[in-house]
């Protein structure tokens, strides 16, 4: 029957079993490939993957010109780009989204533009960013920021319109709140969980175009390293980097959900 409960122990056993089956079949596939070509690097075994894991923490460069291990170098570059871009993009879209939701005379001129631009895939606009914003930090920042800005501004604006009732705004006015107080105390506080969810949803797309851009124009970063290592067929390093990307995504997801629970304990998923 659909949605029939199964015992907790069975659920857990099946969940663990799924992961184990995935890992075992991966290792078997790797062993099979190795039997066909002993030198294959396409599907590295777990032993090869752990070699790759060690390699990314080894110091790079020559003795007279030492460089940090590639992992730290790439993480620093990618996370810095992501954080600055997200920071600017999120703050700008909050400001514009809230204003659009609050004032009809801001909504009217901006909403068609925002709605249209939010539909253009940011990766398709990459050549424009390269041409207009150069190829350094400024380019990555503007790309991530603008890439998430339009769709986030659109969702925040809709959250303000749909989730903040006229009654609560009128109540605040009745109690003598100023316009700024209504925006901060009523609107902002009510949409905060939506904003956090929006950020959570936008990290994925932001990573997509950041990695894509790094593959093309960067000399450090996760995208850069994935391209270079796959070019020299070090798939064990590529796979380790993919796992790292997965972990970054999990941490971000987990952290933001926690943040929302901590900041907005009143918010329930089902209540929307």
């Amino acid at each position: 029957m659909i949605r029939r409960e199964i015992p907790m122990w069975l659920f857990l056993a099946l969940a663990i079993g799924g992961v184990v089956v995935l890992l075992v079949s991966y290792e078997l596939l790797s062993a099979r490939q190795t039997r066909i070509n002993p030198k294959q690097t396409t599907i590295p075994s777990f032993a090869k993957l752990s070699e790759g894991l060690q390699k990314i923490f080894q110091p790079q460069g020559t003795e007279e010109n030492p460089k940090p291990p590639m992992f730290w170098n790439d993480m620093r570059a990618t996370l810095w780009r992501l954080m600055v871009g997200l920071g600017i993009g999120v703050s700008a879209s909050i400001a514009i989204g809230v204003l659009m939701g609050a004032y009809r005379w801001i909504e009217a001129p901006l909403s068609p533009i925002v709605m249209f631009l939010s539909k253009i895939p940011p990766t398709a606009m990459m050549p424009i960013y390269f041409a207009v914003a150069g190829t350094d930090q400024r380019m990555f920042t503007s790309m991530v920021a603008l890439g998430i800005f339009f769709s986030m501004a659109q969702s925040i604006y809709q959250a303000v319109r749909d989730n903040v009732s006229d009654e609560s705004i009128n109540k605040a006015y009745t109690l003598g709140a100023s316009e700024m107080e209504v925006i901060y105390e009523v609107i902002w506080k009510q949409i905060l969980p939506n904003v956090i969810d929006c950020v959570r949803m936008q990290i994925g797309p932001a990573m997509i175009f950041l990695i894509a851009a790094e593959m093309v124009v960067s000399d450090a970063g996760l995208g850069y390293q994935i391209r270079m290592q796959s070019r020299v067929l070090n798939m064990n390093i590529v796979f380790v980097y993919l796992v790292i990307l997965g972990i970054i995504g999990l941490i971000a997801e987990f952290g933001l959900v926690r943040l929302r629970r901590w900041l907005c304990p009143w918010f329930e998923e089902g209540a929307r």
Partner: protein
Amino acid sequence: MRRTFTSSRSLVATFMMGIAVFGIATLGCGDSKSPAKSGTANSGTTGGGSTATAPPAKFTLAWSEYPSWSIFGVADEVGLIDGKAGAMGSIEKKYNIDIELLLASYDQCITLYGNSQADAVCITNIDILGAAGSRNSVAIMPTSTSAGADACITAGIKSIDELAGKPTRGLEKSVSQYCFERCLEKLGKNPADFPFSQMDPEQAAQAFQGKDEKIPSIMVWNPFVMQSVRSRNDAHVLFSSESIPEEIIDMVVVGKDSLGKKGGSDFAKAVVETFYAMNQRMNDEKTRDATLVGIGARFAKLELEDMKTVVTQTRFYSDPKDAVRLFTEEKFQKETMLLVSKFCVKYGLTQAPVELSFGTGKGVMDFDTTFLKEYLEQPKK
């Protein structure tokens, strides 16, 4: 909201536990690594007389758009070979093999070949050493050499000394970086004084052409060299692969495993014959321009006049004797490939120097002139 939270947490937990269970399991039976040999059983069964009625063996050749490789695309157009699987051109029929042409970007070609998704690949003598680390390889022929097709182009920098300390953008761990360092060495400079940083050649060329002030110097290959020089009045070729003649070699390489398959050597012969049949068309007055136009259509959409320049900067080995000379001469075997090998180790393309051999088939990377010589011995029409 609570539900998402707990479920995401429990998912992470089960994932970790799964990994733990797997770890314990592999530790417990860690030495079961040598699986029984079962792959050998079916390799000999398909043998038998290679009569013309036998179904043709299928081979894939991965190529990217480059003057001496786009030739294979044109050969498909004129019917010498048919690049689609299941269809055969005249040369394919002669050898009773089916060649499938895979067109991809250069980097993708390396990945396709290194990961055994293609039997053969068009690749340079630098990148192949990295790929040979994952797959034993045989170079069956050189197709061309770079004589100006890789160049360092600058704006506002008139001499090599002025370039010191200023960033040059280009593809790391590639022909570009090799050429950059070798030219500097030849000019008596220390490459360590000349920073080289990563950027896709196409993007670097575009940024340079767009007069990006942060990109005063680029090291790229054709067609970007030609386009970049033309795009700005202040663009200047500081040095190019002309200074290192016959060091950057474009080749066709076949996996040793594929060459050992049934029909493998016929495939190699067919590739060699196709290349020289196309070269004859290029050298023949009547078909020369049409062939160049065909190559140009498959190389950055260049027109006839541009193609005439391109083929001077990418010198074809249009004479098989010349190709044999290159692979067998001491300079290539003892000097060039050692320099290339050192470069590959320095930049981590390979962990250790790749074991090279020249026609003996002993090395991980073999340069074999057998198929060229067989082509030369063929009775000519």
